């Protein structure tokens, strides 16, 4: 009986905190994305020759994110019957966007105006502890194109 009560408490805590965290995260993601749209992320391997970048640099952003208790249970139930894993969809969506954002933030700090050759990698960090940890890592990396403009700090150009 006590197990059941603890379970219900964990479920509602997970649901409450998870909902709030997700809502806040999405709000922040959309805000920052809108601001950083001035630095396009492009999947082409090489920038067109016309671009003639002054300087290029590897930029990357990585994020580790976990689902809440409620979603883990919901996903467990879903895995019995199959179908869209809605619990995990938002997890991966948030992780990918956050990783790209962090990469762009790094590029922005370097004074880049675009990032080429974007790649993404996903790693599950729940290896061997399948039922305990529902976390995922997403790593986004690319080549920041830093123009020879006046905005670029001298030391980076050098």
């Amino acid at each position, binding site marked *: 009986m006590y197990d059941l009560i603890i379970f219900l408490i964990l479920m509602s805590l997970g649901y409450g905190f998870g909902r709030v965290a997700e809502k806040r995260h999405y709000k922040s993601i959309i805000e920052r994305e809108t601001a950083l749209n001035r630095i396009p992320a492009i999947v082409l391997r090489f920038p067109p020759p016309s671009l003639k970048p002054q300087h290029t640099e590897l930029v990357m952003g990585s994020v580790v994110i976990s689902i809440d208790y409620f979603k883990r249970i919901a996903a467990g139930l879903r895995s019995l019957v199959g179908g869209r894993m809605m619990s995990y969809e*938002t997890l991966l969506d948030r992780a990918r966007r956050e990783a790209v954002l962090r990469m762009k933030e790094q590029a922005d700090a370097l004074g880049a105006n675009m990032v080429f050759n974007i790649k993404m990698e996903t790693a599950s960090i729940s290896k061997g502890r399948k039922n305990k940890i529902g976390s995922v890592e997403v790593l986004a990396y690319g080549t920041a194109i830093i123009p020879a403009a006046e905005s670029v700090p001298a030391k980076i150009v050098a």
Partner: protein
Amino acid sequence: MSLEYKQIQPPEGINTSKEHPLKEFSLLLMAILLFIVLAVVSLSYTAHLLAPFIPFSAEQKMADMFADQMNDEQLVSDDAEVTIYLQSLADRLAMAQGLPDDMSITVHYVDDETVNAFATLGGHVFFFRGLLENIPNENALAMVMAHEIAHVKHRHPIKSLGRAVITGTAIAVVSSAAGGNIIADVLGETGLLTALKFSREQEQQSDESAMTALAHVYGHVGGANSLFEVLEAANPDRLQPPEFFSSHPHTDNRIESISAMASKNHWPTMGDVTPLPIEFSRWLEQTGDTFDLSY
């Protein structure tokens, strides 16, 4: 240099779903619970059909395996006067009920204030001090005893065990498929709650057999009602759950169906009640540390 590349904000809700997570969760939970209930009902029905074919001797061997666990301090030894008295009453009632020859009843007395008595595997019947303290006369005691003996006679403990094993297995299979120790714990917990309880139909059946035995031994069924009054008085404030969720029929309904049975079979509901042995309360006292001689 004008930008040849431009990034626009993608619309939301393409890679994620706008559906409320609770909606999905409750739908899934209902579907899976429905499946479990259906599976358990059909499996336990099968278990009920098959359980009576397990010989009673096998049931006794099974009970002996659990015997070590039952052997705690509160269990009073079998040669105590109260146990001898209860055992002789049990033997009389077992004979009146026509208990098959290969079955036997072993009565145990537990020094605990729980107002209860129960029958379990191998014909072992347990009586708690709390119940015996509140019993007004031998007829009421015989009603409890006959009721528990009837459980044994109708093989209810082994049927319940069969159901519990089947339910436990079904739950373990489902929860391991869902991949959660937590789910397994929770489902297991709910399974255990229902494990070794008898169904309402079984209680009803035992009531009927007990009444028949009572009428046979005492010539009337007076005293049966007073038992339920004792049970009622033991938990006066208890809010009874709806009968659907309860393992025993409601006390009111039990008294009603008892009167119905009595009038159907022309059993007198009144008669001379046999008092308990004069020494009875002393026997209880001997084994209990704290004892209230309030009746």
